[in-house]
């Protein structure tokens, strides 16, 4: 099995799909001549040319809308947001034009498009440039939301996203682009709505995704293991559709749930998971569901405050202790 970085995995997915389907193209700021702000599209301009690797001015509504229009008439655009923070100026295009087109047109026009780029906090980028926005997009029927946590999933899920006939919000992590992992030889895809068990365990279920899964939840699970606590660690991989059965199954086994997410607490994805679990496996829960989220504040620049605001191993262990009623 080849070992590649998350960046390379995403690059391979786009490159392979562009080879497979000439309707696929990439458009966004600095994706072509600059080889991508974070180098995910490195070399694609050279290989596929300016027709299919397209640099744009700073006009997110404009180029997101261009992608949607092109998708309505049969192309398969990949729209890169330099970061998802900048999708907020194109919000209407995504949640109205992309999400509702199939429904409003009574099935006349579907929008096979992928919006992708890094989400969440990097290092000291401050409030407007550090947002984890998955709960906003997952709120809208018509959109699918994908958040891979490793190179293998990233490649398989991005290929699936590009082939999907619906708009897909694909959220990566700048801080994981360089992180390596094994991927299968050759062609593969990973279906949406199928979660992954990262660690098998019996004492407590932890649900987490993307960066905080790898940087926080996995580390916490390992520390807890040394402490004799076995964690059933679940990566849903796609937020919408969500693999509810996998989560319910785990909670039926462990009777305890901690959700770890990077976003803000109020009406976050974790709130939905907490509700669904309480509702569907109520009788199995031996303790209230605990959530570890970003503090309910705009993220400051100062590193020490940033660290204090984001989910941490310590916060996760405290939450686990809570649901286990340990001191």
């Amino acid at each position: 099995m080849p070992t590649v970085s998350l960046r390379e995995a995403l690059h391979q997915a786009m490159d392979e799909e562009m080879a497979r389907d000439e309707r696929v193209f990439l458009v966004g700021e600095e994706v072509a001549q600059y080889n991508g702000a974070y180098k995910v599209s490195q070399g694609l301009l050279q290989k596929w040319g300016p027709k299919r690797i397209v640099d744009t001015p700073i006009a997110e509504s404009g180029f997101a809308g261009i992608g949607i229009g092109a998708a309505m008439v049969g192309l398969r655009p990949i729209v890169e947001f330099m970061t998802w923070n900048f999708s907020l100026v194109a919000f209407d295009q995504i949640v109205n034009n992309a999400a509702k087109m199939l429904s409003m047109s009574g099935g006349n026009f579907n929008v096979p498009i992928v919006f992708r780029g890094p989400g969440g906090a990097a290092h000291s980028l401050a409030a407007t440039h550090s947002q984890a926005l998955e709960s906003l997009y997952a709120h809208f029927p018509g959109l699918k939301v994908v958040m891979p946590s490793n190179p293998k999933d990233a490649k398989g899920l991005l290929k699936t996203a590009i082939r999907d006939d619906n708009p897909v919000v694909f959220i990566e992590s700048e801080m994981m682009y360089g992180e390596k992992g094994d991927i299968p030889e050759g062609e593969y895809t990973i279906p949406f709505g199928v979660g992954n068990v990262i660690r098998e365990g019996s004492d407590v279920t932890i649900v987490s995704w993307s960066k905080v899964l790898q940087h926080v939840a996995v580390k916490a699970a390992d520390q807890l293991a040394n402490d004799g606590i076995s964690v059933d660690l679940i990566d849903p991989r796609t937020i919408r559709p969500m693999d509810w059965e996998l989560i319910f199954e785990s909670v039926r086994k462990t009777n305890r749930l901690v959700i770890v997410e990077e976003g803000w607490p109020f009406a976050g994805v974790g709130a939905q998971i907490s509700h669904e679990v309480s509702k569907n496996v109520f009788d199995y829960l031996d303790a209230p569901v605990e959530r570890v989220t970003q503090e309910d504040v705009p993220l400051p620049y100062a590193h020490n405050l940033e660290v204090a605001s984001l989910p941490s191993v310590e916060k996760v262990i405290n939450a686990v202790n809570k649901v286990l009623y340990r001191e």
Partner: protein
Amino acid sequence: MAQSATLFSTSKKESRTLGLPKGTLLKWYDEMLLVRRFEEKAAQLYGMGKIGGFCHLYNGQEAISTGSIAALTADDYVITAYRDHGLALTRGLDPKACMAELLAKSTGITKGKGGSMHFFSKAKNFLGGHAIVGGHLPLAAGVAFAIKYRGEKKVCLCFMGDGATNIGEFHEALNLAALWKLPVVYIIENNKYSMGTSVERSSAVEDLSKKGLAYDMRTVVVDGMNVFEVYKAVSEAAERAKSTYEPTLLEIRTYRYRGHSMSDPIAGHYRTKEEVDSEKKNDPLSVLSDVLKSEKILNEEYLEIADKRIKKIIDEAVEFAEQSPEPPPEELYNDVYMPTKAEKD
């Protein structure tokens, strides 16, 4: 700085009817009359409570739909805002399906999903019907992007109101269309008001064609009450888009006879009855019929027959709509996601 259309004056024998065949000219009249009557009927049915939601009528702007669509082939694309009945009908969407849509029936053009503001037809390359002002302008550039991407000889016509020229997406879409040379024609249907706000109260430039200067985009001002002028200007722009992939901005000056939507009175708040009446003296249907009369292409008798013929089409459309069933409850869950191979494996 706005140049005027020249294609016909130069390349074709100039005549008041542009040397077009009689059949075409009569068809134009019928089309415009169909739109006029369809809207009058819609207003009536709305008053009877048979149509819900917002309903924006096209009365007064019929020369634009007919003159523009006449310049297209079936392969070209059309996209517009919520004031979409006229363009949809003229593009060939079935009046029955359109009326059924207004009555929210399962036989409607979008099965009762979109309503008045969201007419769509894949078969006719009619890409909507969009209700967020300016939101469809980038989509049009995207359609043109796809045309160029495939190397096709097609154009996308994108219609918008005067008010839409003040929103950010106008700027982003036109800059991108000009920068990338995309085969799109942006058509401002300047009917002097965005809801109750006149152009001079909403745009720093009252001459909207000046907005084309910020993109070095060829811009033409057109008399929207004269179907021939519209046809000439759109034909040239479409031809140019197909042969050079260059976009054009057209400011077509017209007037809205009805209120902004059904809840808005025809006059009072922001314009006088006198203004409306004087504008109506320049009615696009009369402008056309007068030319055709003086050219001996039609006469009073023809007009009466046409009226009957159109009335029949409308009556049949209403009957079809009235008798169609409302969408079945399970329809609520259709068309949210398109089932895809990717998900099935």
